[in-house]
């Protein structure tokens, strides 16, 4: 296997994938948490805030594991869209 050489641009693109779609995914997943089960349970929304950084850091860590920056952007964005759709569905029919 040829040894991989990442250029500065690749690092920037991975980092932005970690920061942007990675964050959107974390936010959306926190929403899934909130609206799965009783959304009005006492203090649940505080837990929903608390879980954003762990989810975000997990997504950010994963972002650097994709084969290319483009793949990181694509998969994280797709996951984010699915999670957003799930939140919308839970809020509508949950």
């Amino acid at each position, binding site marked *: 296997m040829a040894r*991989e050489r990442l250029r500065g641009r690749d690092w920037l693109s991975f980092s932005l994938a970690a920061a942007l779609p990675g964050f959107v995914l974390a936010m959306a997943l926190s929403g899934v948490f909130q609206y799965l089960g009783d959304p009005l349970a006492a203090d649940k929304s505080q837990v929903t805030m608390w879980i954003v*950084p762990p989810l975000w850091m997990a997504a950010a860590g994963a972002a650097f594991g994709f084969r290319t920056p483009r793949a990181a952007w694509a998969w994280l964005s797709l996951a984010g869209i699915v999670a957003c759709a799930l939140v919308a569905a839970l809020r509508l029919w949950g």
Partner: protein
Amino acid sequence: MGLNIRTDLIRRYKTLHTWTGIVAGFGLFIAFYGGALSMFKEPIADWASPARPAALVDGAQRDALFARVVEATPDFRTVRVHVDGDARTPGSVVLPAGRDETAPVQVAGLDANGELQLRERTPTPLAEWIDLVHRTGGIPGDPEIGIHVMGVVSALYALALVSGVIVLLPTLLQDLLALRIGKNRKRMWLDAHNLLGVASLPFHLIMALSAVVFAFHHEVYDLQDATLHRNSPVAEAAFAAPRPVPVRTDALLPPGAIVARMRALSPEFAVTVIDYRAGPSQPDGTRAVTAAVQGYAPGRFLRGGNFGIAFLDAGSGQVLGDGFLPGRQRGWSHAIAAFFALHFGNFGGPGIQWAYFVLGLVGAAVFYTGNLLWVESRRRIARNGAAPVLQARSARHLAAATVGVSLGCVIGLSATIAAAHWITGRVDSLLAWHQGVYWAAFVAAFAWAMWRGAAKSAAELLRASALVTALIPATTLLALAWPAASALDGTPRGYAVELVAALGALAMWWLAGVSARRAARVPADGVWSAAVLPAAPTEAGAQATMAETRGS
């Protein structure tokens, strides 16, 4: 035995680990050293507290004093009643200026004729300032700036933890329990770094993630309310204010009744502070008053730094919120209290406090060994002949800056603590003085390290750290013979602060000797050598200095 992860992926995560670690490491040393000291905020505040202007009272006397204060200040916002009786306790009934814990408070007392008197007392800002250094990295200006910078540092720190674990996974079993002490210094430092890092990984994950929350919680809440919770009752549910029934303020439950009420709710809960928070006056003259009751329960997760809290209707005694009352925490509230408590280390008395203190110092050692590994790698590459000069310079500057920032923080904090002896009650703005002393010492130490280089400055600044730290107990001793030497109240309150400072000073002095001997012994071409030669990359031998420095 390793997991099958592609080698170029491992290399990628290694790069991520290195750079996030290097960038975050400087801020993390300050966060961890300051955080370790912050574990003992209360004893430090007790130590530096000025005398209180009125004697403490309790029982019926306190209830009567409370009633007098409410009568005399009908438009009060908050009346604070202290049930605790530590040196830092300003008085039994107090009118705080606002949320600023360092602002002067009005302490209620009775004069010789039984007339109500309000006397001002400025609390010592020392412990708050140490805590602020911990939270802001000591960055001057609006604390929010430093807090956000440290939030970014913490996020990088979390990424460094994730990537570090991934790098280690394929060879985890071979490497983790191996500490290869010997000729290969880099191998040894890597083993030590891995062992310390993995052994304290849960602690580090807790700290990294909770610090990101502390820095950005407002932003995340606002964003969630604007997106996820848009048009949902959830948005308002998070921090719905308690709604007590308005009453005449002369009909409020006195502190003694509140304490009794709390004992019935949670027998293990020892009340420390009751805040009577009053809403605006109604047309009929009544006001809605909430009693925010702080207290402590041994062995429970506490939502506040050192307290749990419950909210009562101060007129009826009805419970408005007991989600964070130790002993009654349940469901999601209990989870939240756990998140806070695991950061603060407030759930197991002095044993856990000391454990957190040690973990804080060990954490600093992990960042330090991390920097050593980086410097050491630069050296290897340089020897292979690739662009040695530039790397030599960056390695030298990194080593010097590491010494400067860490020992600058150590000296700065010791200096700001020692300064309490001389400035308390003698200057107008105590906080500004404590801050100025810290910054002056920090900047001086940093400049010294950059000028002298890592090897010389490490030994010299450690000596300086030891001397400055020794001023804390030395001034106390001097004041026994010559009271004017210290402005601190001379009443006995134990000598724990002096004892810890004396032990710390001895440890620093010992480490200075170790550093000086290393600097004399290593080959002259390293950044760790005290010899003056043209710049070359680092030398492994004296890197021990840095790690030992960290532990101080």
